[in-house]
């Protein structure tokens, strides 16, 4: 155990850094995707509602490992070989980010849609009755309340996404699990290696969820 930490500790920490980078990139784009499709799911427009629902259904219905292979191998193959004339290649980080963004984005869209719909319709009506437009009412009254109810589910989703980065070891991105596999192959110390990796995830996620609790409490004024 000591040997792994002294010899491979730096390597594992660097891999954890890449895991966090991938998770942050994925989450950043997932927030944008989630916001767009979540709002498309609640506005009074049939076409937007349907597009949003189809997106969510497709992404939710496909395991992330399949999505990862599809984005990393399938999409370049489609352009370069089936259609031909392109030479697209995605780095593992790019493909991984797209994958996480799509996957997490679909779940975020659902969280945002459900969060907005959980706000009493009377809030919107009262705002509109004063002459505020739909978007003003949304921005000033409905969204601030929706976001408060969304936060616990958001945090949950962040944690799931952070853990889902481990799936992207299959496309060769050197995140924590992928690196740990190499460490284990070099040392043959399975128990020690995976225990250390498990603890590393545990520490990061615990810090994340604790600090999220603090944010949640701060936002609860006036409730």
């Amino acid at each position, binding site marked *: 155990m000591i040997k792994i930490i002294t010899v491979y500790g730096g390597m594992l920490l660097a891999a954890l850094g890449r895991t966090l980078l991938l998770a942050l990139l994925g989450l950043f784009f997932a927030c944008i995707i989630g916001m767009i499709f979540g709002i498309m799911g609640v506005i009074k427009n049939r076409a937007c509602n349907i597009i949003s629902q189809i997106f969510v259904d497709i992404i939710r219905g496909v395991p992330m490992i399949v999505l990862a292979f599809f984005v990393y191998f399938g999409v370049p193959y489609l352009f370069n070989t089936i259609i031909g004339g392109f030479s697209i290649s995605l780095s593992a980080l790019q493909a991984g980010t797209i994958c996480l963004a799509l996957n997490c984005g679909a779940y975020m869209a659902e969280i945002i849609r459900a969060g907005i719909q959980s706000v009493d319709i009377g809030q919107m009506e*009262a705002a509109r009755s004063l002459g505020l437009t739909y978007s003003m009412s949304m921005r000033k009254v409905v969204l601030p309340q929706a976001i408060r109810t969304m936060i616990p589910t958001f945090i949950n989703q962040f944690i799931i996404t952070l853990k889902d980065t481990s799936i992207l070891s299959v496309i060769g991105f050197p995140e924590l699990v992928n690196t740990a596999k190499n460490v284990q192959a070099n040392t043959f110390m399975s128990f020690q290696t995976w225990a250390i990796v498990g603890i590393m995830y545990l520490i990061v996620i615990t810090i994340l969820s604790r600090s999220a609790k603090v944010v949640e409490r701060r936002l609860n004024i006036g409730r």
Partner: protein
Amino acid sequence: MVDKSVVKVSVRNLKKSYGSLEVLKDISTDIYKGEVLCIIGPSGSGKSTFLRCLNRLETVTGGEVIVNGQNIVSKGTNINKVRENIGMVFQHFNLFNNLNILDNLTLAPIELKKCSRDEAVQRAKKMLAKVGLEDKAASYPSQLSGGQKQRVAIARALCMEPEIMLFDEPTSALDPEMVGEVLQVMKDLAADGMTMAIVTHEMGFAREVADRVIFMDAGYIVEEGTPQEVLVNPKEERTIDFLNKVL
């Protein structure tokens, strides 16, 4: 107080359906400047829907609603501008839970650039004083009682300086001992000459304050007239039947 020469709201053959369910069948009436109109009737008679058609919170299926000479049913109407002039008070208060009382009152005037921030705050404080809650400016809605919330809701509507106020069962969600304080604010408002349309179950209030009472049933106006005519000497059998049950 009623100025019969100025029609504030004119409703012509108003119809409203939800799918195959026809809630308002053929409603026509005028509301004059300074008039206090009380709308009574059994639940499901369409009185709330009728009120909500007056500021187009409900999409009208047929007929016309003319506010200050402008047909608000037609598509070209900027409904937001019309609504600035029509205050509404809801059964469940609908105060903005994420904002404190002062911000509840100033949000719309500031967002809609009716006045500067300072003016909005000044007016909000004046309105809070009017409903007896000047000390609650920094509180949040969750810290107020039902009666206080409803008085804030009235003050919030008044901050837009509307010419017409709509009340949708403003005391129905209140504990009995809080009904009086809300009705008092409404009485003061009526005495100031505000044009008001009130859906209510408070027959005593209707008798005392209303200039005209409408009794609705099954999507029609069954009877209308002075409180004396409708509440004391009703002619229609359905009105008599209803009043016997509630009084």
